[in-house]
């Protein structure tokens, strides 16, 4: 089963090839660094205080793309079955590569196809009940030339619930795919603070299928990395489902290049569903932010509530924000909207804070946090949100002046 899925992916890849600069879907991000044969070097980052360290969770560690059993917890958790790609159970064999293949239309995503064909490892997680603790996939990078190609599959049976934490830098260059099948009435929370290595390059793709009355929520925090492309392809197939995807990215070109791309495609194929896309980027010193988001409402997907916001705060003059927020609507009884704004710090707000005695640096940090607030509000768990906020404050403190 698994072999068939890999072979078919290899055939699909051979047929479509890798994207080039002229590819419409890559107009603002150069795919060369992902496509080139040799792994571009990236110095490993020494993590002193890992995020979510104090939380009660089940930790599974991958170092340079290889499962690190010694550093991982015992994978026993009530209502959760965890196995590996190399010994995938039957359910995983059926699902593996299937959501990825479905997500290739209307836009091709060749790096995800390559991942399905060639992934070196990954976790197959089946959730049958409410998981008592979050499952934590922790990435570590030790070599400056490591290549990580990981493919995880998560299946939530009807009514199940799981929080998945995905943290750290998987390798000097990483290609990560996460397929998530959220069954009827199930709830899936995904929190992903991406690694703190300054030089790594990552392309990730989430392929999710959301069933009736189910909830899918994903939040990504990115503060470093030379090149990041996070794709999400979410297909809502059951009535009354909810899908939220949010991201906060802060980039300072002074740390090295920073190019961050969020590419999202949400399809409404059922009645009475809600989707939200909330993406915020704070850019300085030549950092580049890209947002390509789309809401597709299929014929018959009435009572859809679709919302999308993409905003960039540019802290100086060398930055760029490039956005393509799209709507494609084929049903009339819907409410869909999107907004996109780009601009500098509001001078009036800054003046107000300074007139109240707040030093300029602190005032800017406050305004940046308030700019990001809508995205952070997408994190439901208060303890997790607090850790995210602490990480943001730490970054802002380190990037003043």
């Amino acid at each position, binding site marked *: 089963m698994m072999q068939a899925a890999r072979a078919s992916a290899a055939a699909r890849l051979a047929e479509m090839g890798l994207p080039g600069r002229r590819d419409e879907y890559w107009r603002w991000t150069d795919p060369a660094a992902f496509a080139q044969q040799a792994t571009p070097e990236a110095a490993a980052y020494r993590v002193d205080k890992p995020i979510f360290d104090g939380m009660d969770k089940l930790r599974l560690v991958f170092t340079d793309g290889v499962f690190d059993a010694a550093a991982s917890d015992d994978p026993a958790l009530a209502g959760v079955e965890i196995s590996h790609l190399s010994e995938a159970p039957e359910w995983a064999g059926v699902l593996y590569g299937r959501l990825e293949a479905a997500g290739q239309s209307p836009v091709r995503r060749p790096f995800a196809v390559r991942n399905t064909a060639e992934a070196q490892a990954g976790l197959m997680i089946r959730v049958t009940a409410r998981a008592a603790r979050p499952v934590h996939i922790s990435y570590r990078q030790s070599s400056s030339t490591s290549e990580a190609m990981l493919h995880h599959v998560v299946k939530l049976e009807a009514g199940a619930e799981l929080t998945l934490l995905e943290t750290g830098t998987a390798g000097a260059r990483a290609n990560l795919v996460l397929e998530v099948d959220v069954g009827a009435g199930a709830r899936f929370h995904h929190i992903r603070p991406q690694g703190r290595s300054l030089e790594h390059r990552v392309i990730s793709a989430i392929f999710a299928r959301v069933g009736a009355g189910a909830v899918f929520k994903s939040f990504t925090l990115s503060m470093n990395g030379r090149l990041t492309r996070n794709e999400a392809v979410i297909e809502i197939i059951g009535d009354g489902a909810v899908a939220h995807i949010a991201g906060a990215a802060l980039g300072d070109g002074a740390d090295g290049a920073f190019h961050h791309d969020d590419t999202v495609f949400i399809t409404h194929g059922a009645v009475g569903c809600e989707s939200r896309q909330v993406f915020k980027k704070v850019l300085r010193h030549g950092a580049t932010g890209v947002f390509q988001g789309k809401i597709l409402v299929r014929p018959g997907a009435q009572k859809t509530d679709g919302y999308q916001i993409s905003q960039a705060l540019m802290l100086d003059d060398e930055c760029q*924000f490039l956005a*393509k927020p799209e709507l494609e*609507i084929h049903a*009339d009884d819907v409410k869909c909207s999107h907004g996109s*704004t780009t601009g*500098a710090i509001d001078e009036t707000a800054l003046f107000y804070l300074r007139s109240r005695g707040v030093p300029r640096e602190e005032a800017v940090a406050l305004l940046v946090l308030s700019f990001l607030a809508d995205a952070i509000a997408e994190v439901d768990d208060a303890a997790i949100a607090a850790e995210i906020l602490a990480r943001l404050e730490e970054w802002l403190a380190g990037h003043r002046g």
Partner: protein
Amino acid sequence: MIGEQEIREGVDRETVETVQGMGSYKYGWSTEIEMDYAPKGVSEDIVRLISSKNGEPEWMTEWRLAAYRRWVEMTEPRWAMLRYPVIDYQDQYYYAKPKSMETKPKSLDDVDPKLLATYAKLGIPLKEQMLLAGVEGAEGVAADARRVAVDAVFDSVSVGTTFKAELARAGVIFCSISEAIREHPELVKKYLGSVVPQSDNFFATLNSAVFSDGSFVYIPPGTRCPMELSTYFRINAENTGQFERTLIIADKGAYVSYLEGCTAPKRDIAQLHAAVVEIVILEDAEVKYSTVQNWYPGDENGLGGIYNFVTKRADCRGDRAKVMWTQVETGSAITWKYPSCILRGNESQGEFYSIAIANNFQQADTGTKMIHLGQGTRSRIVSKGISAGHAQNTYRGQVSMHPRAKNSRNYTQCDSLLIGDKCGAHTVPYIEVKNHSSRVEHEATTSKVDEDQLFYCRSRGMDAEAAVALVVNGFCKDVLQALPMEFAMEAQSLVAISLEGSVG
């Protein structure tokens, strides 16, 4: 068809009927007139023939040939959200001229009465008469009567231009482009292709090779054009493409308001229309360009109609130059049109107001580009799309802030209204911001008539129909208000969202 499907509560009958009524195309008749055609198809010989029919100098012929050679190498773009059968470019006539125009009439009095009757029937004043704003057949002429100079283009040729003498006294040149090539070669040479180059895109390049006629406008420095200028395009001949080319130059400190209208007869076979409009605006000058596009949209089964592929672009070359595009797009089976503004001069301004209505099997992919290059440039985009029947309506736009374009601003608002569950409304904006002192805001919504607004109106004692009338009327208001008076009346009756009848 709307009539056959369930009409949602909240969308009132009159709105539906008026949008539907657009299917009963008012201008679908044709004129029986003897025509002189160039042979079917396009080739270097045809390009030479068109050039010689227009009595063009050698440099113009070469310019066209260069475009043709380029076009042969190009492929038709397919990125728009439009579905139409493959166009056989060799199965079209590229030049059709009424026989009676063989010897150019000296004045409008010498023009074939059949042609004059055609324009009279369309309601286009070719006599130098006073035109009362928006009111047809009004008795007497009121004090606020306005005059509009008209250039009437019939298939491939300009039939005549009114008020030329009076315009000439003000120094304004308003004539057909073929005449301008002969009479004002220095201006044409300097500006033609300077905004939309020959190689710009597939359709513009085809136009550069085979354009037959169109209008030419030059407003000298410091001159406010004494009247509104307008061009009325009529496709009459069958299997004939219309390829008009318009060039407008507003010299320093000049001002002109230009109106464009277009209609075509009902035919079962789709017809091609590929136009290019170039506008050059120098320092402190201002141009308003308004279009009511009412080409034959095809019948309720999607048979026939005009395939409308248009490249329109304004170049604000001087500081404080200003351009405003206003369009009401109700016709054409296929619309592919993105009137754009290049804001090169510092503090130059571009505005784009659009209403696009698509019904039955119409497909519209339209929007604008705002390219900010100068400092302190400002742009505003207001787009209202209404889809009904099986129609697909796409807003496609680009806002680009160059690193040099400091302290610039853009505000974009795209709203779509869907009537019926078989149609589609899409938004495809591209936003590129490359400096931090500029501010870009984009908003788009898609909905049916808003329930909260209805509820509010009803709670104030309005009946359901009046409430919908008010809400839907409000939906298009921003754009209707931007139109010149004459057009606003016509547009309103086309859009038909003012619903006095249903209130009474």
